């Protein structure tokens, strides 16, 4: 199997879907002539021309809305936000138009659109460019929310997103683009609502998505040295959420830590914690633990940035609390 980057996996997904379906096009800032601010759209302009790889001016609300309108009449836009931070000026189009149109039109208008781009904290880019907003979008009925953690998941989920007849919020890990993984040559799709066990284990369940999957896998390695066997569950999509895969894992291990890079208040981890206690109360040997970023806008200084975000040590500490190993 070929080993390629997360970035290349996304690029392959778009290229293949654009070749398969003439109605699929890509639109966003710097997606064409610049080859993408993060090079995810590299080479698409040369292959598909300006008609299907559309550079936009800085007007997120405008081009997000144009995507929704084009989807109303049957095109299948992939709208790239240079980062999800900038989606906040377009959120009206995502929430009030894309997510609601199907219900509001009595089922007449599907909106087959993918909003995609890098998400989550990056490195030393300050408060406005470094935040995790998946809890915002996962709150809204009518949207699907996908957050791949590996190159394999990135390609399979993006192809599913492009073929979905409904709006998809597709959040790529800004710090994951350079990571690599095995991706089959043959076509494959990963259905939404189907989580993945990224590491099997017997003693405790760690639930994480996007970059936090990797933090949890690193924590699992550290904990394995102490004889603690972690299972790492990646739901891959927060909406729809694969509740059974989480429940089955927690019923097996009896303990659960949820690790997310978002803020704690009204964070998505709270929803997972609710599901775990609702379905696993009799199987739980300890309260569900959550690991989140500190409840502050992201500072610039590297040491403070690290301090704010969940690190391997924070996950290790949460696991030890859940195992009553520390006071």
């Amino acid at each position, binding site marked *: 199997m070929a080993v390629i980057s997360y970035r290349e996996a996304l690029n392959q997904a778009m290229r293949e879907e654009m070749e398969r379906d003439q109605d699929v*096009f890509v639109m966003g800032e710097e997606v064409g002539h610049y080859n993408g601010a993060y090079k995810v759209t590299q080479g698409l302009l040369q292959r598909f021309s300006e*008609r299907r790889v559309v550079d*936009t*001016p800085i*007007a997120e*609300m*405008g*081009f*997000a*809305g*144009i*995507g*929704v*309108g*084009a*989807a*109303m*009449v*049957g*095109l299948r836009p992939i709208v790239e936000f240079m980062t999800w931070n900038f989606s906040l*000026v377009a959120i*009206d*189009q995502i929430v*009030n*138009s894309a997510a609601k*149109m*199907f*219900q*509001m*039109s*009595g*089922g*007449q*208008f*599907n909106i087959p659109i993918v909003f995609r781009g890098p998400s989550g904290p990056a490195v030393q880019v300050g408060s406005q460019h470094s935040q995790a907003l998946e809890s915002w979008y996962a709150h809204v*009925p*009518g*949207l*699907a929310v996908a957050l791949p953690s590996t190159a394999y998941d990135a390609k399979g989920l993006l192809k599913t997103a492009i073929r979905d*007849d*409904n*709006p998809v919020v597709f959040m790529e890990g800004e710090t994951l683009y350079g990571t690599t993984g095995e991706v089959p040559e043959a076509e494959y799709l990963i259905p*939404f*609502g189907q989580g993945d066990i990224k590491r099997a284990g017997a003693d405790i369940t760690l639930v994480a998505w996007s970059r936090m999957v990797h933090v949890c896998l690193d924590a699992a390695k550290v904990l394995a040295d102490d004889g603690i066997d972690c299972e790492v569950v990646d739901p891959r999509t927060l*909406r*729809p*959420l694969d*509740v059974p895969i989480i429940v089955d894992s927690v019923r097996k291990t009896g303990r659960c830590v949820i690790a997310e890079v978002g803020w704690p208040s009204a964070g998505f981890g709270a*929803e997972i914690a609710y*599901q775990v206690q609702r379905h696993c109360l009799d199987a739980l040997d300890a309260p569900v633990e959550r690991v989140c970023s500190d409840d502050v806008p992201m500072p610039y200084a590297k040491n403070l940035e690290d301090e704010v975000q969940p690190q391997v040590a924070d996950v290790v500490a949460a696991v030890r609390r859940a195992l009553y190993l520390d006071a």
Partner: protein
Amino acid sequence: MTLPDSARVEPEQAEPTTVDELAPLYRQMLAIRRMEEAAAKAYSQGKIGGFLHLIIGQEAVCVGSIATLKPEDYVVATYREHGHAYAKGIAARPIMAELYGKKTGLVKGLGGSMHLFDKATNFLGGHGIVGGHVPLAAGAAFASKYRGDGRVTVCYFGDGAATIGGFAEGLALAALWKLPIVLICENNQYSMGTPLYRSLAVEDVSLRALAHGMARDRFDGDDVIRVKRRIAEAVERARTTGEPSLVEIVTYRFRGHSMSDPGLYRTKDEVEEWRRRDPLNRARERLIEVGITAAALDALEADVKAEIEDAVRFAEESPAADAYLPYVTKGAQ
């Protein structure tokens, strides 16, 4: 009294017309007026809920402009869209049933007054966020350009939308990409209760076109034939050259912003002055001038009366909405 700056447009003669041209347009305007009067009555009886924004006084705008379109052309409207929906070819029955929240409503009682949609007639909605629908309309036009299908999109918005980002961005992108769209500002003098002079430094909304190299027009909407002639130019431009236009039509809503607004921010004199320019009455007088027979006019008016009474009866007798649609993704239970 003196009309505000926003209302000043060059006085123009009524356009030459014929009974054959004007009668169907008058019929549509009258049906919209009667449909909305019936809706207002039902609202006051508690049979229609939520917001109900009436277009009474502005009927010439939607009727005259949509008369220039082909069935395959797209129309995108605001929450004040009953008239546009009707003019695009949607029957009074499903519109009225939708206002009543009935199963037989245009969108099964799921949208209500502000969210009429009809794929069959290419009516792309009824949108409730001021100006947020302008980029959507540009998107439909973008699709027409992408496909080369020759369709034109017409997008309606009020003067109040001229200050919001969605309008600015939709306008900018439509101009930059030369999208086949006609952006029609229905300048009815007020954004909710705020007169234009308190919301725009330059009250002529059509001037925004100049910043984008876009064609513009501005005229009084009291004559439905004038609306038709002038919008036809913009539609033709969009269809043949793919170029967008911004057209401001000066008009007036006789009622408040919605049924909950008595419109006390306006003087009685002001409302009376505009009522004298009522486009519906003008069309009727004009129809008589160009030679409609009394019998034909009576028949037309009786026909409209019967149509709206039938629509109300249909709405009254229809079953309640019975189910919302499954959400597109099954979220956590």
